[in-house]
């Protein structure tokens, strides 16, 4: 198929960006979206032009590195996938595809489609851990039985890949699905309960400091999340946060 691409080009954070049109031809429906981008870049390099910078790494939907906003949706029109798992069979011959970076105050553009998501790391530094030493002198792994239900629910929350699609999809650029998922994973496990009060307070404080917005229960994040992280995690974080502050 032949396609027109409208791509956000921005040389660096200091320079204003703009949309630029490109044409690609003979795109196979079996290609992944990023393989289509590879074809474009190979074409640009051969013409002596600068290829489009975009983040990508594992190309199997788990590292969370790829981050494009395609036709107005984080990771494009398919559900439950990252951009690297999006296949060209989702598009038609002659389509025009708009490709932008994830946009949020807390995700400044580095170049073209590459954004800086280190704000997510800083939220994790604020409390995304259990304070246990890694020296190996812990108790036996089966010493604390955990109900299968709680373990499965914690696992569902823990599958978050930290891509930032939730933020990019949210009209408030809120990171509450991301933070809620981490808070929930630990809140659901006995190991995590011990520090639950401080954790939720510290992570929420850092989230606010980074300039992420609040949640207004629209649910776009849940729809666009490639891992299907549930809105229940936001509700759980709110409960945890409320309880933590009541205890003060």
């Amino acid at each position, binding site marked *: 198929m032949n396609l027109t691409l409208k791509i956000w080009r921005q040389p660096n954070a200091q320079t204003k960006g703009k949309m630029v049109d490109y044409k690609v031809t003979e795109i196979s429906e079996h290609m992944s979206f990023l393989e289509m981008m590879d074809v474009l870049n190979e074409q640009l390099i051969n013409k002596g032009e600068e290829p489009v910078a975009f983040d990508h790494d594992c190309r199997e*939907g788990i590292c969370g590195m790829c981050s494009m906003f395609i036709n107005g949706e984080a990771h494009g029109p398919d559900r439950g996938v990252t951009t690297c798992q999006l296949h060209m069979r989702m598009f038609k011959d002659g389509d025009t595809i708009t490709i932008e970076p994830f946009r949020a105050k807390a995700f400044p553009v580095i170049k073209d489609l590459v954004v800086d998501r280190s704000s997510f790391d800083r939220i994790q530094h604020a409390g995304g851990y259990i304070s246990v030493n890694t020296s190996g002198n812990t108790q036996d792994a089966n010493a604390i039985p955990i109900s299968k239900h709680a373990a499965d629910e914690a696992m569902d929350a823990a599958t978050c890949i930290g891509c930032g699609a939730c933020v990019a999809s949210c009209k408030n650029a809120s990171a509450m699905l991301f933070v809620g998922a981490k808070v929930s994973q630990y809140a659901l496990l006995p190991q995590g309960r011990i520090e639950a009060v401080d954790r939720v307070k510290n992570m929420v404080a850092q989230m606010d400091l980074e300039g992420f917005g609040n949640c207004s229960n629209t649910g776009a994040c849940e729809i666009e999340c490639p891992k299907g992280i549930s809105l229940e995690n936001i509700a759980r974080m709110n409960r945890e946060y409320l309880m933590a502050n009541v205890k003060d």
Partner: protein
Amino acid sequence: MSVLDSKVPKGPLKTKWTDYKNKINLVNPANKRNIDVIVVGTGLAGGSASATLAELGYNVKTFCYQDSPRRAHSIAAQGGINAAKNYQGDGDSTYRLFYDTVKGGDYRSREANVYRLAEVSANIIDQCVAQGVPFARDYGGLLDNRSFGGVLVSRTFYAKGQTGQQLLLGAYSAMNRQIARGKITPFNRHEMLDVVKVDGKARGIIARNLVTGEIERHSAHAVVIASGGYGNVYFLSTNAMGSNATAAWKIHKKGAFFANPCYTQIHPTCIPRSGDYQSKLTLMSESLRNDGRIWVPKSLDDVKAIREGKKKPTDLSEDERDYYLERRYPAFGNLVPRDVASRAAKERCDAGYGVNATGEAVYLDFASAIERYGKEQAKIHNITNASAEKIYELGAAIVKAKYGNLFQMYEKIVDQDPYKTPMMIYPAVHYTMGGVWVDYNLMTTVEGLYCIGEANFSDHGANRLGASALMQGLADGYFVLPYTIGDYLSHEIRTGKISTDSPEFDAAEKEVKEKINFFINNKGSHSVDYYHKKLGKIMWDKCGMSRNAEGLKEAMAEIKALREDFYKNVSVPGNANELNAELEKAGRVADFLELGELFAKDALVREESCGGHFREESVEIGGEQAGEAKRNDVDFAFVSAWEYKGEPADAVLHKEQLEFNEIELKQRSYK
């Protein structure tokens, strides 16, 4: 030829590590605060090592090319992690895990290292549970296990099909705790481009800030390389696009010996390639072989009909299918080790039985598992006379709970529903057992320079068993390196801060900058990927699942010629002082173009078949094992450690003889 000193401590195997730890030198907490350690790579090995070293009190700097340590490619490991917990009471023990790993590695690993690995394996699970890693549990609330290839027990712990992700996020959380304390300084979007040696000791690195292009100097009392494997030398592999050998190769060029580069794991269950534009291959976890049965049609007519779309795989009756692994290896069946399963798939496809358009695919079928689970569920739920539909529905639900995310991934890529039609799979490059040579302390042949995880060579011999990579990465990082590096650093307490203002740093930085400027100014006619793809094709065709002397010699010559062409004609657009993905790739491919040649040379020297290295000249001729790989313990029971001498073809071979005191060397039979 010199003899390499593996520094394996004396004494009985079972108490070696404990005795050694008891006598090792320690650094007092006040002195640790004055000692700096650099860790390159933040996957399971690097992440766990940096967290533990920081917790002990050292000042740690971590480097990764990704935008966050959490994205290292350990995250993509699916199936699980082995540990000799014997929670299932099925006869597992430290000794059995040790034995299985040595045997699985085709008797080409170091006994003492593997025993230590098996010994600390159980601790890893305790540690990860304490960190909040949500492993799968059964209804009683205890941890669940599954089976992996090459073993007869269930010792694999898992978190759905995302075990690597959960373990890495555990290590990342431990790192975050230390980052919050200021004990780890993370340098993300940074790439190490050289190691700096002062008076023969590793004293720092030169790194490029991938956002600004700035070349930075970082000093330390010891440097740890945890940069993963070199599978991307094949261009197409299950590795991440950015996975590279640059850190490992640069230290090789500065004196670290490179061991067994020809030991590569070609994983049997990957999604087959669909076209020339393919950028990477996707693994389908080995855990699928617990329940999936591998087959091709018995008749070539059926193969043809399937390829032409006239028949569907589900049209073939049981009698018309060749479950070739069950046929050839009745004892292990579909759970033979990876190298055996991959070669068997290649054998069938080479004979013309491949089931897709390219002729490079076999079926992995879940129909029997769905029926078996369905019947079991019907019993559990007291449904008598359940219809076939009901049984299917109940069975599919169990399969979904076990492998749901893998099935979804397959469907998204291939556009077929694996609950209804068998998956198509084919082997793909996955893991490299070879790597930087290290001694028992995980130190390379350069003092103060360590190498851990997939980047080193030590524990898997010529073939790695499933779910053992995660085990080794975390064992090295959490439980081995933090002890052994202390022994070295105990001699560094009087050294003081290491200056980056020295002739050695000047020289290393100059060399790095010159290389970058060369690429930017070369203005050639071909992209970096053009060369990478060509290299990959040579590697796959001549250093792939089976190798012969003639092909390997050709590969060496072809890679050398390709490298020369690369330096003449490669084109790198953009500038050095900005985010420039092509420039990053150019440096990595330049290193692959050297490593590939050494790989072929190593494969040529090893005139035996062992593990992932299959030489067509070395096969069993007669008897029950006819056609199977033939190992040669008399001439080749050694580790090949290569010393850099300029051109890869001039590398000098050093042999570390492998001694087996606990295990009797046997033919690795899975029949």
